[in-house]
Structure formats: structure tokens, C-alpha cells
């Protein structure tokens, strides 16, 4: 259930995490997990296609990290990605307000 909830917001969550700085896939998954106190455990298999989609849409860019022996791709948010994130945040606030109105504590 939690994973289904995440799926719809995965792009925005990844963009929001990348605002803090460039990161590779594992670090992104860990950041989300830690920031959400373990509530947002991304299905790891879906992480990389999601990053690839963001890259196709030019919302992030990536390059292989050549500083270690390990093959890691480092992702970085683009200016367009930041604009998209701003819009995603606006839409989220709107949605949250609407849902709060309906599901909020009864008065």
C-alpha cells in the first residue's frame, strides 16, 4: 500500500532529494528512507527506470562517477527539474489541502 502511494510521487520525491545535491541511486534510496523515518522505502527495482525517465525529460542529468572503481551513475537536478519540482510542490499542497478538507479530523 505504501509502495503504491510512493509510486505516484516518485518523480517529485527524487527531484526533491536531488535538490540537496548530486547523488547516486543507492544514496537516493537511503536518503528517502532516512528522511521519512523508514516510511518511504522505494521499490529499488523501479528507482533506476524512474531516474532514466527524469533524465529523458531533462529534469536530471547524469554521468558515471570516475573517482572510484565502482560503476556508479551520479544524478544531478537541472534548472528545468527545479522548475518542475516547484510546480509539483504547488500541486501537492493543493492536493493535500483538498484531502485534508475531506479526511481531516471531524470538528
Amino acid at each position, binding site marked *: 500500500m505504501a509502495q503504491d502511494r510512493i509510486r505516484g510521487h516518485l518523480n517529485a520525491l527524487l527531484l526533491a532529494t536531488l535538490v540537496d545535491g548530486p547523488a547516486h541511486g543507492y544514496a537516493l534510496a537511503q536518503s528517502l528512507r532516512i528522511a521519512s523515518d523508514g516510511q518511504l522505502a522505494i521499490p529499488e527495482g523501479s528507482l533506476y*527506470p524512474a531516474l532514466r525517465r527524469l533524465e529523458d525529460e531533462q529534469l536530471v542529468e547524469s554521468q558515471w562517477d570516475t573517482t572510484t572503481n565502482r560503476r*556508479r551513475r551520479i544524478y544531478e537536478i537541472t534548472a528545468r527539474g527545479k522548475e518542475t519540482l516547484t510546480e509539483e510542490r504547488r500541486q501537492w499542497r493543493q492536493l493535500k489541502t483538498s484531502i485534508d478538507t475531506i479526511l481531516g479530523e471531524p470538528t
Partner: protein
Amino acid sequence: MAATEDEHRHDPGGTDVKMTNNELRTYLDHVDQLLDAPAPGRRRLLEEVEGHLCDAIDHRVATGMDPTAATRAAIEEFGPPSEAALGLSDTPEETATGWTHWLPIAVPFLLTAIAVIGAAYYATKLPDSSTAGERAAVRTYIQSTLLLGGITSAGWFWLRHHRRPRIVSPAWLATVAALAVLVI
């Protein structure tokens, strides 16, 4: 972290290290076999998954877990190969499902059916007194029908073995080839 990785990969002496490498390689091979992604993106995905799993193993080893248990835990967290491959495969927007999955094979299948009926008709109705030219024309028609059938079968087998094909798939090439055979 890099040092730990190097130990995992290059230390020839440790049994744990060999088991870790073997388990990881076996898992990645399984994912590779089940992954439905085109060649360039496929290699990148697999390299990223390998890096991801190595990071996950190192992270656990750094907390005191032994390498074998760390590998198993990392693999378990990533999911069974079939689920991992499904997650890593192309997104639904890029793939064909339902009737669109079988659409590319529908046209060559229909053409083949018509051609087979036509070939059967000519083969049975051709009189014994037919000319060499007529017989050659019928032979060409039957050969074209067989070619069409071959193309259709190839497209069908391709679709059967790719449960989530990309919309632009080799099956569409079968359609184009079938139409080309018909025109020629």
C-alpha cells in the same frame, strides 16, 4: 567503501568473498535473463544495479554484518530477479499491453490466412493443361505465402517471448515485411 569493494572483488583467498561474488553474479545474471530492455539501456541498468548492490553490501558490512549475510540481505531487499527485472524493464508508457500487444501480428496473420486460402485454391484448381508461365506464377505465389507465413510466425514467437514489448517492436517490422511481400 571502495576498499571494501576491492576486497570483495579481488581478494582471491576468502571463502566469504567468493561466495559473495558468486551470489551477486548469479543474481545479476538472472535479472539480465529476465530483463526486457533494449541493449544500450540494458547494460547501463545492470551496471547501476550492480553498483547499487555493492553499495548496499558495503553499507551492511560497515555495520558489522559478514559479507555473505550482507549480500543475501542486499539481494533480498532488491527483490526476486523476476520482480527486479519487471521493475527495471521499460515503463508502461513505453510498452504495449492488451490488444495493442497483439496488434502488430494481426495484419500479417490476416494476410497469411488469405494467402494460404488463395494458394490452396490455385493449387487444386490449376488444370493439367496449364502453361509453364501459369505454373511458375502459382509457384511464386505459394513461395510468397510460405515467406509470409514465416514472417508471421517469427513475429508471433517474438511477441510470445516478450510479455511487455516496446510499442515499436520487431513485430511491427513483420507487419511491414508482410505488406512488402504482398506488394511485390
